[in-house]
């Protein structure tokens, strides 16, 4: 889920960077003292997740975990994902520095959308509702990210429908796996540390 360097044009890169910067600023504002360790743990999880390769399908796809990050952190997903992506660029040469903004936005925006759509159900619902909502949040994180990447690639002259189809199809298995992981994590937290999932956080 990383767009490489040298593919996108300057206006797309600048727009992505600007949107990402806005999200990061908002996220940093919302980040309280007590939440910092939580953010760091989720950053680490996101950082490592992209190394976990899902061997299904013909293409090489990996876990993203942006849905999980989003549903737990909301807007703080932006700084959290930015840190993880920066380190991935630095240490794994995934993506690149000029595309950092675009990649951050592509991953964090669906995360925030997941938060707004499913936050309430995940936190308020009973176990079944919560698990279902978390599953959808995880799947939406990946699916939304794939859609945004397709949208970015359109600007390079690729046709949206065909690119979107290829990317979505390739990420189908990941969407399902991420959904399961997200709902597993949420259920675990509900049992072990329900105060982390309190409404209004």
């Amino acid at each position: 889920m990383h767009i490489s360097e040298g593919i996108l044009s300057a206006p797309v890169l600048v727009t992505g960077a600007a949107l990402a910067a806005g999200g990061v600023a908002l996220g940093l504002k919302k980040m309280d003292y007590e939440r910092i360790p939580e953010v760091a743990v989720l950053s680490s999880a996101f950082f490592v997740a992209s190394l976990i390769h899902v061997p299904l399908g013909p293409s090489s796809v990996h876990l993203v975990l942006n849905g999980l990050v989003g549903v737990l952190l909301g807007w703080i997903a932006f700084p959290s994902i930015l840190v993880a992506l920066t380190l991935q660029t630095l240490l794994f040469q995934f993506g690149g520095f000029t595309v950092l903004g675009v990649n951050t936005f592509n991953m964090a925006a669906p995360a925030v959308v997941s938060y707004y759509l499913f936050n309430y159900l995940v936190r308020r619902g009973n176990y079944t509702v919560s698990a279902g909502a978390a599953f959808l949040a995880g799947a939406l994180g990946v699916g939304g990210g794939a859609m945004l990447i397709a949208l970015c690639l359109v600007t390079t002259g690729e046709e949206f429908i065909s690119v979107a189809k290829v990317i979505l199809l390739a990420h189908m298995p990941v969407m399902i796996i991420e959904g399961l992981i997200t709902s597993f994590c949420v259920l675990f937290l509900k049992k072990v540390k329900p105060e982390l999932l309190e409404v209004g956080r």
Partner: protein
Amino acid sequence: MKRFYFLLVVIFCLLPTFSYAHKVSVYGYAEDGRVFVEGYFVDGSKAKNSIVEVFDAKTGEKLLEGKTDDKGMFSFKIPRLTSLTVVLTASMGHKNYYTISKEEVAEAIGGETTETEKTQKPEMETDTEEKVVKAEELEKVVERVMERKLKPIKNILLQIQESHARPGITEILGGIGYIIGLMGIALYFKGRK
């Protein structure tokens, strides 16, 4: 804190199953008047059906374009004597490039056009033609043998390059260390208020 430990456990449980995805690499070498290009992903799978574009590294002019086959390979005849930049674009926004130096290209085009002419012309004036023919034949034989001998070495180089493209445990733990460090810095600054 329980949550922290739990996530750490999840991360470490997944560590052994690592396989790497998501970065495409391209490697090329010139040989026998042709350039061979290979594209592969970080997890070692080949970049099939990927677009390969060849540019003149000096002028940036696009010389030719093609697609990799099922083995992620693509080869083309050297279009001109210059350093070549091979750009490989795989699906879903993955792209990388590799530059082949002018010297390597020159060597691959072979003695026939550049080196031999220079070295053998003075010979022609003094020696009999027979000797020249023999020298040419000898050179061809040597080249063939060298190629055969160098093939495994080239493969080893390719493997080394592929293994370098993979992030190791050092990078992974280093990255997590950075995040923990950043957490410390954030805690420090937020805590001072």
